[in-house]
């Protein structure tokens, strides 16, 4: 067998793989009932929708005091959800970190379970559930964001806790410190910076989520969005989406600045 034949055979193999891949995608499309004509014209439709309906953006709508108040509502929901969520998540993460957990058999699994459970349910589903339990309003949104923060912050922070240097912890423990002292003097100084960084990142994500959960009955900007979507007020909808983009960019810039500052201070 010379090189040419191997080359030809490889080419044929690749060709078979690629055509199989496209065939599977074709089957997926058939299964999902997607019209190919619709799929390939989707970008054009998207563009014409933006240009014809959403385009004349009604900026004055988002400058009305009612809407500005709802922005404040969203920020407050995000903030309170973050604070409560982080407090609960820190405790859970302490239990769910396999190296420093006080009880390996029960506490570890309980912490891990709660973090995974609150992480795997999307924030909008949490909102719907809490709205059915406590009714419409910002309380339901705050609870939903709390669950969201527990999942998000808990996962990142417990991974951070699992990466601490165990030598220091063992030294302190062998000197007769109890669990609280071990955490305060052995673990906490090592994860302090990471804690702040993750906190700021969680705030960023939490604020992004708080702009939308009003769509399902919690307060804030999402409620205005839902109203205008249902009323087919495209100009106002696009203004609200634009305002969300601006706010998210602003909060992202702020959190990047804060993280940079903290990074510099610890160096």
């Amino acid at each position: 067998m010379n090189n040419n034949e191997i080359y030809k055979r490889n080419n044929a193999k690749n060709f078979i793989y690629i055509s199989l891949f496209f065939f599977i995608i074709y089957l997926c499309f058939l299964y999902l009932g997607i019209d190919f004509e619709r799929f390939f014209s989707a970008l054009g439709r998207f563009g014409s929708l933006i240009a014809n309906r959403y385009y004349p953006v009604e900026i004055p709508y988002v400058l009305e005091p009612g809407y500005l108040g709802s922005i404040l509502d969203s920020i407050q929901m995000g903030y309170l959800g973050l604070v409560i969520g982080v407090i609960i998540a820190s405790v859970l993460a302490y239990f769910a970190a396999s190296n420093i957990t006080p009880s390996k058999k029960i506490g570890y699994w309980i912490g891990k379970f709660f973090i995974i459970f609150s992480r795997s349910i999307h924030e909008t589903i949490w909102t719907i559930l809490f709205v059915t339990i406590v009714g419409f309003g910002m309380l339901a949104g705050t609870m939903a964001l709390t669950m969201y923060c527990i999942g998000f912050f808990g996962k990142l922070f417990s991974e951070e806790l699992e990466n601490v240097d165990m030598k220091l912890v063992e030294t302190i423990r062998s000197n007769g410190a109890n669990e609280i002292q071990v955490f305060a003097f052995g673990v906490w100084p090592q994860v302090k910076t990471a804690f702040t960084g993750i906190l700021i990142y969680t705030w960023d994500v939490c604020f992004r989520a708080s702009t939308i959960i009003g769509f399902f009955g919690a307060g804030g900007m999402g409620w205005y969005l839902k109203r205008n979507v249902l009323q087919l007020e495209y100009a106002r909808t696009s203004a609200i989406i634009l305002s969300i983009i601006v706010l998210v960019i602003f909060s992202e810039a702020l959190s990047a600045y804060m993280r940079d500052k903290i990074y510099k201070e610890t160096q």
Partner: protein
Amino acid sequence: MSGYQLTIDDYSKQNSSKILKKIIFYILLIIIIFLSVYFIIILDTDWHRIGSGASILKQLSYFIGLDVKIMPHLILPAFETFLMACLGTMLGLILSLPVAWLGAKNVTPLGAVSFGFARMLMTISRSVHEIIWALIFVGAVGLGALPGILALAFRSVGFISKIISENIEGADKKPIEAIKAAGGSGFDVMYYGIIPQILPTVIGTIIFEWDINIRRSAVMGLVGAGGLGLAFFRQMHMSNYPGVTTVILFIVGLIVIGEILSHYLRKKII
């Protein structure tokens, strides 16, 4: 020399002003907490409607139990959700390749113009929530799985293209220069010089994004795209609370499967 001397008094003054600043910062934070508690829990909440703790527990107890009858009807939507996530991630990858090419400083063709344009696209894609993307696409292409796929794709573009362009910027320059010196075109540089270097990280990123997309595609049905979200929406509107619990269990199961798969795949690649 006297200008550079730091006496103990000066030092303690600086230190105390620093501590004062810190204290003011924390007091401000606590005041904001109290304000938000006041606005949310006292002003905005209708305690009368919620009632006592017993009525909350009663409301919660509706959710206990499983609806076995709807389980067979959930398997196909679960599969649909899974497929939506896969196709959405794939389409997102295809869409993010040109954006990443424009958004990497060292290969962008038109300098600051195309770089800024690509960065703007990435930011818009990331800052618009997937529910809003789904709403827009339901308006554009109608109900079904297609708006869900498109929404997931547009939402993933920001993250994937950001990672890819950062990797392109950080790629080793020596092979690129060698290909250039041998007379390779821009495409050759991309295909033989850059892509082999960034491939492992990019595949890891795609698997990570796919994992998140499963979570997102489970809620696409709430605004008109198909999948488990639609089943959740129906059960919720029929006030069939055990059914709601069942759908949530299916969602959690699907996500756990996705997490295990992505963990295994990432390990295999690295």
